[in-house]
């Protein structure tokens, strides 16, 4: 008996009782539909997470100075500034896996425009390459400052959407002058909105200016982040009485260093040091090699001996990306397991109905055997019927599941993405369920004795 004939025969016998066939497949339909929905929504969320992280700067590598230590006291990350703008330039030039890198310095303080003022969560000094590193090149208004602005320490800046809203409301900020910590800056551009980052921090609450300007023209930036123990000794402010109640300098824990001590435990002072270097690898696969190259280069540039610890730390967002992808995968798999249970239940339903079918059609089986059907012909016929039921259920399930996830995506705004793997898997699973649960009834049918079957009423 050819497969084609078996399929036609099975379709004919299924057509005889369409309602029952429909109800039988319902279990499979629900199972497959839930598998598809789970997988599409799961995949959608993990892609959304990836997008959020790549929005933070895909393939980003952040280089921090290592913590410093003097006299056994450690000052935490960024305690010393061992990174220089030249390091940044060298990274761009000498690390083939790095696409771009930008130096970063930070400032904090009040920003004033007209009668409004605001304190942005970050005031950054960098160069135009920063926007490339962060995948943020699209400006919603104006343009970014240029490398020439960086070289001349021009007082220009670009502002984020939130800052623009707080200071300018509906005005156009471009070419307006704002004051950052009392230093006037001309706004040359407004960044496109980026939204919150993973931690919920508003990434649009930002001002970016040339790092030279931030470092040398904005008062108070840079210096107060430098190793306090090294700097506080010089500053003496006992001018008025309030300062003794509210001291504006750090308390001295240690006696001042003598010249000899300073000579012995010399703190390297770099005149143009920066807080961070923000680099981007060419692709996420190249992040690891980029980190290796940067480590090698910086150790060489900082004259670190073999065995000496790094005076910088390198972090990448890939770690976070991996963690989050793993988490969503875990959740998706969990949901998939639940969906699999419903598939199993559906399969048992199919087996049940097929068993009923076999005993109902005992006489038909007898007739077929009498005219020459072999056992394997009967087996094949009932197996084909079960597989057709399951595949039909699978197809309906795929349609319903895909529709369902699109509706969910539409109504609840959940991210979803069509997944061909899920559809292939659902197909394979429904055929598998058909074979697994259709085999027993089909086997039972094929083992019937033709005489008994013909006599069956």
């Amino acid at each position, binding site marked *: 008996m*050819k497969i084609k004939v078996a399929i036609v025969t099975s379709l004919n016998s299924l057509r*005889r009782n369409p309602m029952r066939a429909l109800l039988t497949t319902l279990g499979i339909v629900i199972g497959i539909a839930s598998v598809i929905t789970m997988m599409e929504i799961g995949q959608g969320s993990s892609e959304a997470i990836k997008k959020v992280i790549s929005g933070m700067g895909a393939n980003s590598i952040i280089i921090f100075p290592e913590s410093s230590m003097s006299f056994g006291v450690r000052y935490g990350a960024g305690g010393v500034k061992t990174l220089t703008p030249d390091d940044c330039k060298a990274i761009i030039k000498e690390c083939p896996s790095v696409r771009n890198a930008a130096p970063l310095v930070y400032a904090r303080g009040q920003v004033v425009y007209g009668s409004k003022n605001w304190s942005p969560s970050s005031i950054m000094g960098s160069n135009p390459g920063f926007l490339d590193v962060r995948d943020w090149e699209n400006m919603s208004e104006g343009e970014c400052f240029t490398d020439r602005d960086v070289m001349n320490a021009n007082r220009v800046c670009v502002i984020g959407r939130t800052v623009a809203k707080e200071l300018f409301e509906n005005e156009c900020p471009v070419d307006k002058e704002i004051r950052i910590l009392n230093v006037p800056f001309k706004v040359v551009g407004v960044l496109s909105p980026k939204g919150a980052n993973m931690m919920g921090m508003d990434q649009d609450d930002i001002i970016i200016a040339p790092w030279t300007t931030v470092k040398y023209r904005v008062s108070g930036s840079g210096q107060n982040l430098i190793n306090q123990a090294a700097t506080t000794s010089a500053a003496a402010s006992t001018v008025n009485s309030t300062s003794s109640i509210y001291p504006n300098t750090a308390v001295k824990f240690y006696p001042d260093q003598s010249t000899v001590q300073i000579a012995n435990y010399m703190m390297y002072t770099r005149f143009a040091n920066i807080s961070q270097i923000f680099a981007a690898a060419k692709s996420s696969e190249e992040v690891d090699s980029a980190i290796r190259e940067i480590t090698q280069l910086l150790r060489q540039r900082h004259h670190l001996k073999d065995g000496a610890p790094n005076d910088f730390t390198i972090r990448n967002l890939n770690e976070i990306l991996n963690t989050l992808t793993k988490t969503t995968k875990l959740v998706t798999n969990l949901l998939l397991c639940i969906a699999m249970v419903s598939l199993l239940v559906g399969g048992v339903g199919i087996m049940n109905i097929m068993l009923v079918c076999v005993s109902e059609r005992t006489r038909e089986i007898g007739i077929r*055997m009498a005219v*020459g*059907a072999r*056992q394997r012909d009967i087996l094949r016929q009932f197996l084909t019927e079960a597989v057709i039921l399951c595949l039909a259920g699978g197809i309906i399930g795929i349609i319903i599941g895909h529709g369902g996830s699109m509706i969910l995506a539409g109504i609840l705004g959940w991210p979803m993405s069509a997944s061909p793997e899920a559809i292939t898997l659902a197909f394979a699973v429904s055929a598998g369920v058909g074979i697994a649960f259709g085999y027993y009834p089909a086997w039972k049918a094929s083992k019937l004795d033709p*005489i008994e079957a013909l006599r069956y009423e």
Partner: protein
Amino acid sequence: MSNTLIDLKDIYKTYHMGDIDVPVLKGISMSIKQGEFVALMGSSGSGKSTLMNILGCLDRPSSGKYYLDGEEISSLSNDGRAEIRNLKLGFVFQSFNLLPRVSAFENIIMPLAYARCHVSTKEALAKGIQLLNQFGLTERSRHEPSRLSGGQQQRVAIARSLVCDPQILFADEPTGNLDSKTGIEVLDLFKRLNREKGITILMVTHDIEVAMHAQRIIHIKDGLIDGTYAGAEKK
């Protein structure tokens, strides 16, 4: 012996009902020649249906040899016997045994689906149409069995049994569910097939009037052949 089609040698059949053995056939030997029209008679419980099942390759004898067309059949596997049933034998039942809710035409060509020899769809259709014409069922080809009269159903069943060009036709009480007029029609059909196509026919019946249509009547009683008589039909 060249034209002997069926040769039974000392066939026994015993059913086991729990611990008790129930002997049904107790040593039957007989032969049927090619082209014969034989009636198998006996009261109910005489073992004629069991003999029929063995002859029709639906069942296996407990002991004894069954030669069909010179081939030993009783030792064949289930699949082997299925093939014999498909290619060499045709069945006509008392209760017609047509597939319900399947058109007359599809019922007729159904055995071709199981044919070992390759039958193309086109050939199957041609064969079906030819048989429909032969039995005057052309107008009924799309009808399901439930919408056919008893005589029409039996004609469909006969057409189905002939679709694989069998050598022997087994008819189990073919007139049992028919009124006497259509019964006679069916018997006339058998006689015509026997005469014109040379098909060997073995008919089981308990009705002497029906049996008289055959050329030879074999009477069975308590699992043994009781006697053989000549029927009304001339050889």
